[in-house]
């Protein structure tokens, strides 16, 4: 059994205009030694999906179906106290824009010890020592534990976020858009750190991003999300080499590269659908170059094809 198994997860936002199916029947798993990249455009439900794993779903959002099995237990049926212990120790998360998620009036050392004290009975000195070690783990000198967030640059704040998340040795780490808004050089330094951490701590990671190249450089497995659904899942190399779903294919082609020959500019016409009134049939059909009659009538189901799991009528 995999470390984390998400089965048929459904999260809807109940608004006055109707139910928005932000996450609609998605399944995926993460095993030890795996880095799963969850990729998709803004509003496709990727953050909503991992929030559910942390049990962060809040009204008007509600988990209406599915299971999230972590180490054999369903997170969705846990009590409040069990969830509190799970967060940080079992599964930890670094939030999007962690730069701004830090407390500005607390030094970073205290922000790390705060997490440790929540979970473990340790003395102040012990916790402080561990905070320093955490900082060193992410490449910041332990002497800076007394510094405040404004004394760090954006990339270093993001590192502090990772130091806080890994303070209690979680068994699964979730990174939500870890490098968005960072400069390329800082971004590269951070991706190197993520790869190092995985190697050093053997930490499985779920990485959420809209950036294909970030996934390419860190992940072993990729799930492509579109309009609340996973449309394709495969191991990273095979997905980049032979994308099966037309959306994955176009997304990869639309991504500019500075290596190799300069190809033609490709963009996907149209925009992702509103999830209040999604299109009939396949959600990608209005933008799809290979749409057929059946795509406008029936929703495709997941089929296995050459090691990929793909939801498209092209494969039957």
């Amino acid at each position, binding site marked *: 059994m995999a470390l984390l198994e998400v089965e048929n997860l459904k999260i809807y936002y109940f608004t006055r205009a109707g139910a928005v199916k932000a996450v609609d029947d998605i399944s995926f798993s993460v095993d030890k030694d795996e880095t799963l990249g969850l990729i998709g455009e803004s509003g496709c439900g990727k953050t909503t999906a991992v929030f559910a794993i942390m049990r962060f779903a809040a009204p008007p959002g509600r988990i209406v179906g599915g299971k999230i099995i972590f180490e054999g237990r369903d997170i969705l049926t846990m009590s409040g106290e069990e969830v509190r212990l799970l967060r940080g120790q079992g599964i930890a998360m670094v939030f999007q824009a962690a730069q701004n998620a830090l407390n500005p009036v607390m030094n970073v050392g205290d922000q790390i010890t705060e997490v440790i004290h929540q979970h473990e009975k340790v003395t102040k000195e012990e916790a402080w020592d561990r905070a320093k070690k955490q900082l060193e783990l992410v490449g910041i000198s332990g002497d800076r534990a007394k510094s405040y967030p404004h004394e760090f640059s954006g990339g270093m704040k993001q590192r502090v976020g990772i130091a806080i998340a890994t303070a209690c040795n979680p068994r699964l780490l979730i990174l939500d858009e870890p490098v968005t808004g960072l400069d390329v050089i800082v971004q590269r330094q951070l991706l190197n750190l993520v790869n190092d951490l995985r190697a050093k701590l053997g930490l499985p990671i779920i990485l959420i991003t809209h950036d294909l190249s970030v996934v390419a450089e860190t992940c072993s497995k990729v799930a492509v999300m579109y309009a609340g659904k996973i449309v394709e899942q495969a191991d990273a190399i095979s997905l980049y080499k032979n994308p099966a779903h037309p959306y994955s294919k176009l997304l990869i082609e639309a991504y*500019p590269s500075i290596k190799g020959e300069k190809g033609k500019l490709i963009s996907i*016409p149209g925009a992702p659908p509103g999830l209040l009134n999604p299109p009939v049939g396949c959600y990608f059909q209005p933008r799809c170059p290979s749409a057929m009659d059946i795509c406008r009538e029936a929703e495709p189901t997941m089929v296995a094809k050459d090691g990929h799991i793909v939801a498209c009528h092209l494969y039957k």
Partner: protein
Amino acid sequence: MKDQALLRVENLKTYFPVRKGLVKFILSRKVEYVRAVDDVSFSMGEGDILGVVGESGCGKSTLGRTILRLIEPTEGKIYYEGTDITSLNRRKMRSLRRKMQMIFQDPHGSLNPRRTITDILRQSLRIHRLADGKAEEDALIKNTLEEVGLKPAEEFWGRYPILLSGGQRQRVGIGRILILQPKLVIADEPISMLDVSVRMGILELLAHLRDKFGISFIYITHDLATARYICERIAIMYLGKIVEIAPTEELLKTPLHPYSQALIAAVPVPDPRVEMKELPIIGYVPLIPSDVYTSCRFYPRCPYTEQKCREQDPPLVEVSPGHYVACVKAK
């Protein structure tokens, strides 16, 4: 340098005074500056697309705004079609502004949510008195909407920005300036807030407008990969200075400045089969840039530094036709 250049910038400097406490000011009596743009010179012709690439805080946006005189330069000259615009008065500057326009980064924040997109375009026309009567305005607006890819125009007529997607809103932002028939457009990170699937569409549109109307663009970005697709030349900025400027493919293949090399090496490649390389750079951009530079401003992070780098701030010199570098090692 060519005299028929559309835009020529000479030794442009924009300094911002650093606010200090009163006591500190009385004690030192010295005003310190942040040198956001520090001695930048370049020129560009009609129909050129110049990329200005650098990390946040390197002064690329300030450079763009200074060229339009949205920020007054501290020193230096900006020639537009041979006239020095730094000495123009407000009225003359205003009539020139029609020719020099700007596309903003945030398509959500830069459109007035209480006006329909038709009104937003109409406002541009009225400010510059470009049309006689409503019928002519309507015709111009319709043409412009279709030119920027919002077709059929009837479908978008009278819509509010909130009903449009990010990409469509950015097209309205481009339409708002296209309707003025500008000759020089500063595009400040026009696609960085858009979804990946629509980004390339906006870049295609910019390239199309250049081909059809001969508009020149200064494309300000932190993303070398997208700059590659539309720019003929790219200028790399670091702490207020252009450290290298060269034709795009030449710069990407043979970058000469160590900073350009690091920047290019850091660009992630969307292919998991390509291994990540070690970066030839140390540390971070300084949080507080220094007031005066007597050394190369990159030397604290440079892996190839030598004594000479500490003694002078190297000037931008031409090493091969059109390829300028500011580094003591480049010959």
